[in-house]
């Protein structure tokens, strides 16, 4: 009788232990699945940021002056208090400038004068609402003098 009682107690303890291990595994796997969804979403944001960066670089190259760039980017705003001229613009989910888009783009315009034309360097930084770290930072440069173009 005592032996049987001991067996039953052991059985309960073993199943309790099994349940604890099972719960721990489920919690761990749930975290893994959640993390994979988060990484998937971030990869999408990075893809969007790469396309936006491409578009903004094209606009920088097509502009011969800061005013032209400003005019080309709808709803752009000049950022004050910076060492170099800086333009801020927001992009929407369709990857075009939008008034209240989730992507914030900051473009610097640093001009170096030359004998046959000016060289402009731009740093393009893209961030997204809800994410502290910048998604992407790229640099581009272009000559604005017509003489240096073939």
């Amino acid at each position, binding site marked *: 009788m005592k032996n049987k009682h001991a067996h*039953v107690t052991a059985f309960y303890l073993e199943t309790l232990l099994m349940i604890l291990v099972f719960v721990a595994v*489920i919690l761990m*796997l*749930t975290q893994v699945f959640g993390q994979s969804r988060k990484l*998937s979403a971030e990869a999408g944001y990075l893809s969007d940021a790469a396309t936006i960066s491409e578009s903004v670089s*094209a606009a920088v190259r*097509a502009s011969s002056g800061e005013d032209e760039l400003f005019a080309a980017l709808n709803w752009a705003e000049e950022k004050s208090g910076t060492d170099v001229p800086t333009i801020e613009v927001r992009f929407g989910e369709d990857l075009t400038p939008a008034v209240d888009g989730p992507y914030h783009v900051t473009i610097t315009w640093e001009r170096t004068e030359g004998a046959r034309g000016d060289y402009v360097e731009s740093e393009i930084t893209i961030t997204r609402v809800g994410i502290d770290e910048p998604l992407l930072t790229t640099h581009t440069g272009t000559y604005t003098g017509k003489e240096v173009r073939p």
Partner: protein
Amino acid sequence: MSKNNRSLLGIYTIGIAALFLLGFLLLVVFGAGSYQDSVGARESHSAQRVLLSYISTSVQQTELGHVRVEDAGQMLVLEDGDTGYVTRIYLADGRLIEEYRRDNTTPDPSQGRAIGKTKTFTVQTAADDLLKVTTDEGIVFVYVEPSTWDGGQSGAAEGGM
């Protein structure tokens, strides 16, 4: 009493087994859904990169010939220098087709290859030296060297980007 104990133990055992089974099923369902979402997202990102980046790279690579837009912004034509051959990019049957043929030929999707799937493809002039390309996967702006831009029937996008 002994019978009661045995039946309680049996119910307890079945309950535990049922709990484990339910847990595994939920894990499988949740995991499969998560995997499907990840694969779908990866395909969507790839399609976006392929379509938009390929088009902008193709335009930027056109250094010796001219870039023009035909068919009211529905076809992008990139000349291959003065060889007489052109690369045409246009929409056919829900796919973006790239075709490399003589300039004086009629576009024929069967002679080209599909770049990706999209139901929309338009090319417009956003500003001087700046083209706006629109597809299902998004919009990209492409710089065109002034010496290669031949204009065409693109029409103008609304002012600026």
